[in-house]
């Protein structure tokens, strides 16, 4: 391998931003003091290192009577043999009955240990030996399976009180990093799949702004961060822009021309990379990685960045079979129409269930140009056998991105895949989607709830191999405006230029939020989008692009978009079939005959594969409170000619403003961080979504007229047109009904005249 002149070493007079400061004097990770000390040699004083799981607090929360979490962790070649133990730090809900609650831990399909879950336990830190050879270089699967039982309550709502939360700070692989704490110069780009996560489970990525005050290098660092987020599927990035490298777990991206790096005190020696001008350095204890890219000038720097991006894209995914599958499914399996995907292919395992509410999560990835109309459906053929003597009141419910989409009654024998359930597509988004299945399994005995007897015997068996989901034909039509994560950084179809990301100049919190969203959406979309940061001393929002700023610093179209959400008079109230039937507002407690009729109509409609309104009350939801974040996108209007041209697939220039706002910049930052931590980015929908910090929920609405852009080679394809037209009609049902009534009256009148004239 060719070695190039590039490495980092210290020099006497370095500036404050010296990279080596971070690498030679590493800060002890907060979690390091809490790791299991039993694995230390008696005389050893070295702190143990931990490689945490790439998951947030929310993702490590195991909820319900049976909860399963599967994740992939990358073991680099030089560390895989050092990993000796898997450490777990946990906290269990007080409601969980200790005698029948436990947590099993699997690595690459093999059980390595189990924990009896006891609420209020003093020592919540456990570690399990990893058998030699179990971990392999590359991705490995780690699976947690928690089973809980409620102490005193046998109802379905009580099952939501059961949880075990794993602490991301102290959960992961622990090992002795060895005596040397010197930074290691690495050659393998695969290491960028193992960026260690911080105590909160986030991946800290620090864009180091050196020397130059020009922001162009931050654009470049952001492009690199996006490539790495795509490469490692880092969903919850904690992106910072600082003048010096960070400490603790994470990644520093340091780039600039050779003279810029030199002036900032970064001394360049030789590197082991075969990409000229690129070096990878890791601090052993924290695992923090520094990616350093330099070139003679900015244009050469761009070429090096392009080379890096193409190399990363070409690297294969390696590891254990289960680990590779877990990584592949991380952002959902790509869906092809007309092809059934078994739940086992989606990472679901077959299981026997002895509780009262079985829930199972998986994720799907739909095409970018998937038309989110109400027409069209997916069919879920679920194979759930009822093993016990279940009552008649049991149901299956299907949720997508938090919204209930379909339900069915459970028969005495369970549910057979021969009777698939239709799921309307209206609740799905282009790109990443979270799907949850809930199956209740109540018995008549649960009504009595003899706690002493509790549940005895299995009640359900879910066969993942024999359960499958299948999507019929998709309409392929891009709809704008649309805040779905695929479209957050919208650019006009005819424009290949970078999206302008605009923030106030003196607002670092908004700037970091903006770059955090850019990197997170790159990871989720598995796509790098060129962006250009613009810091403005004036209020922002007059130019198209992504605008991140507090409400009092918005201007132009961005301000209009915000004002529209709080001005009820300007709202185009969504009609549709749910409005027509009055299904929007059936309150839980309404047991009148009319409410029953509407509920029945709703279930009929659902059975036909149409999504019902989530029941949002648009009167109040879009008022911002602390840490709420509003996402709204507006586009320039198209003339009728342009609409038709766009509908037929020809490029049309259309500018889009995506505004991300909140009461203050810290509110936006905290809200977006919480949104990412809860993995809610994919829940954004419509042209306006509000993340409510108080509930963790996302409320979506459409305020502006949608524009349709054909994206398939043949937009007039019959199936595509049929689905799109049906979708449009279902969104405008009242207009359609009135039109049809007027048409029928006109037809009747003409017929009547014709008959009269013919003398009949």
């Amino acid at each position, binding site marked *: 391998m060719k070695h190039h002149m590039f490495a980092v070493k210290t020099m006497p007079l370095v500036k404050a931003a010296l990279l080596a400061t971070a690498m030679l004097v590493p800060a002890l990770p907060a979690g390091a003091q809490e790791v299991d000390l039993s694995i230390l040699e008696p005389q050893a004083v070295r702190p143990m290192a931990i490689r945490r799981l790439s998951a947030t607090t929310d993702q490590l929360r195991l909820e319900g009577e049976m909860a399963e979490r599967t994740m992939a962790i990358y073991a680099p070649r030089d560390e895989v043999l050092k990993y000796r133990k898997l450490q777990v730090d946990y906290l269990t809900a007080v409601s969980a009955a200790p005698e029948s609650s436990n947590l099993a831990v699997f690595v690459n399909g093999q059980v390595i240990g189990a924990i009896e879950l006891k609420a209020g336990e003093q020592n919540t830190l456990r570690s399990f030996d990893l058998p030699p050879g179990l971990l392999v270089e590359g991705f490995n699967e780690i699976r947690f399976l928690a089973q809980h039982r409620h102490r005193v309550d046998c109802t379905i709502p009580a099952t939501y009180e059961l949880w075990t939360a794993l602490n991301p700070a102290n959960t992961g692989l622990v090992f002795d990093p060895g005596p040397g704490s010197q930074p290691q110069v690495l050659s393998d780009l695969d290491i960028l799949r193992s960026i260690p996560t911080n105590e909160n489970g986030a991946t800290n990525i620090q864009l180091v702004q050196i020397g130059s005050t020009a*922001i162009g290098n931050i654009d470049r660092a952001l492009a690199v961060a996006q490539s790495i987020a795509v490469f490692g599927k880092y969903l919850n990035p904690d992106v910072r822009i600082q003048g010096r490298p960070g400490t603790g777990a994470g990644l520093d991206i340091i780039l600039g021309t050779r003279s810029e790096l030199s002036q900032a005190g970064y001394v360049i020696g030789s590197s082991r990379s075969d990409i000229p001008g690129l070096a990878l350095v890791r601090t052993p204890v924290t695992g923090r990685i520094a990616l350093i890219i330099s070139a003679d000038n900015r244009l050469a720097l761009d070429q090096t960045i392009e080379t890096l991006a193409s190399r990363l894209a070409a690297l294969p995914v390696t590891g254990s079979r289960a680990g590779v599958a877990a990584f592949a499914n991380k952002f959902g399996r790509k869906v092809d129409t007309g092809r059934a995907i078994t739940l086992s292919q989606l990472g679901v395992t077959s299981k026997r269930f002895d509780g009262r509410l079985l829930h199972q999560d998986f994720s799907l990835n739909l095409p970018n140009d998937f038309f989110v109309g109400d027409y069209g459906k997916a069919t879920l053929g679920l194979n759930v056998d009822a093993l016990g003597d279940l009552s008649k009141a049991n149901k299956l419910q299907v949720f997508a991105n938090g919204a209930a989409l379909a339900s069915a009654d459970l028969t005495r024998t369970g549910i057979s895949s021969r009777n698939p359930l239709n799921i309307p597509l209206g609740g799905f988004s282009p790109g990443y989607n979270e799907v949850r299945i809930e199956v209740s399994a109540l018995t008549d005995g649960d009504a009595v709830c003899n706690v002493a007897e509790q549940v005895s015997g299995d009640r359900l068996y879910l066969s993942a191999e024999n359960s499958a989901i299948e999507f019929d034909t998709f309409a392929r039509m891009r709809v704008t405006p649309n805040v779905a994560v695929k479209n957050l950084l919208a650019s006009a179809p005819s424009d290949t*230029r970078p999206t302008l990301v605009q923030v106030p100049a003196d607002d670092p919190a908004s700037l970091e939020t903006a770059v955090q969203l850019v990197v997170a959406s790159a990871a989720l979309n598995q796509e790098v989008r060129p962006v250009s940061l613009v810091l403005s001393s004036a209020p922002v929002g007059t130019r198209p692009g992504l605008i991140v700023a507090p409400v009092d610093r918005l201007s132009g179209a961005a301000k209009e978009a915000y004002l529209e959400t709080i001005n009820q008079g300007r709202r185009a109230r969504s009609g549709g079939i749910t409005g027509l039937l009055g299904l929007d507002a059936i309150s839980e407690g309404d047991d009148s005959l009319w409410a029953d009729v509407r509920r029945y109509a709703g279930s009929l409609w659902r059975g036909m594969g149409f999504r019902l309104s989530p029941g949002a009350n648009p009167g109040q939801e879009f008022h911002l409170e602390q840490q709420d974040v509003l996402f709204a996108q507006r586009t320039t209007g198209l003339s009728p000619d342009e609409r038709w041209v766009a509908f037929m697939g020809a490029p049309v220039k259309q500018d889009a403003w995506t505004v991300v706002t909140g009461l203050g910049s810290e509110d936006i930052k905290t809200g977006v961080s919480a949104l990412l931590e809860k993995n809610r980015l994919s829940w954004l929908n419509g042209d306006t979504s509000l993340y409510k910090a108080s509930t963790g929920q996302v409320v979506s609405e459409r305020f502006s007229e949608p524009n349709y852009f054909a994206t398939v080679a043949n937009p007039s394809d019959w199936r595509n047109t049929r689905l799109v037209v049906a979708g449009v009609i279902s969104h405008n049902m009242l207009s359609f009904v009135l039109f049809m009534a007027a048409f029928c009256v006109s037809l009747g009148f003409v017929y009547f005249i014709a008959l009269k004239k013919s003398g009949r």
Partner: protein
Amino acid sequence: MLCAAVIVSMMAAGGVFPAMATEVIGQSARDNEAVSLWLKSAWREYAKRFVTADGAVIDDGNQGISHSESQGYGMVLAVAVDDRELFERIRDYTFETLQVRKDHLFAWKVEHTDKGPNVADTNNATDGDLLIAWGLVEAYKSWGENENLSSARLVLKDIAEKLVRDTGFGPVLLPGEIGFSSGNGKEFTLNPSYWVYPALEAVARFDTSANWEEIAVVGEEVLDLSQRAPSYLPPDWVDVSGIKLDPAEKFPLEFGYNAIRIPLYLALSTNAYREKKVADFAALKGFDAPGGPYVVHVVSGETQSVMGGKGFAAVAALTRCMDTSEPFPPELLRVGADPYYSSTLQIFTVLALAERYPQCLSQEG
């Protein structure tokens, strides 16, 4: 002399990033007393030395000829300093003397003889035509005379019809009607500095005879592809065939007196992305320190000569300002000694600084 008058009250804008673009070119400069004073003084000196009583703008470094480019520059600068009388004089001369073709484009070259002006070449120069149209549009924006806008539209319509060609990259600007495309009409010789970005942005708002914004975007792509190792400086001329782009064979393989204008035009752009490209020039040969820029052989990377003149050095200083906020050297504000071309670039550079990066105009001068 005048540099002492340059004050930094405009620094109040804060930050190191461009402020919002103003509507009319020179608006920020006009609004700032000190910069306005410098500009007016520099313009008076410029007009005295290079603009004749008839309104011809003389290129004293080029046998004293006038050309569509110099007329266009003169018109834009006159609007920028709010000199309507001189603008009209230059405009009228331009239309009377250079608009001698069958279309609304302008002959590129006029010699001044004892018998009066003589059109030496009726071929057009697209950058000159574009600059004139820009000047007319800016005049319309500034003073609201509809005739200026309608005249600009006629020029732009002919540019769109005769000089815009489709290539593998998209629509490009042919440098002139004659002599820049092959017999089969598929190979073209282009000049990246003929993409006058602020002009394309300004005219796009008033004219739809071509997709000027798209042309500007394609210009960026042509520029990106032309910047290659070892120097990464764009050549003055390039050959384009399909999606293949190379330094032009029939011109010197140089970054020279044409391409030096590229960072200036990018800096005058109101597009943030284009402005950032200016900063990228700061690390290139001849731009990275006082003393440059140089004429550079783009294949070997060797320096051919130094571009002597404050205007050229001012462009290099502009790139450093936009990169690292390096103060603009006060000596580059002195006027009165340089020939036409250098002086023109010098004034445009100060205009760009006043509009986009006023913080680089330091008080020490």
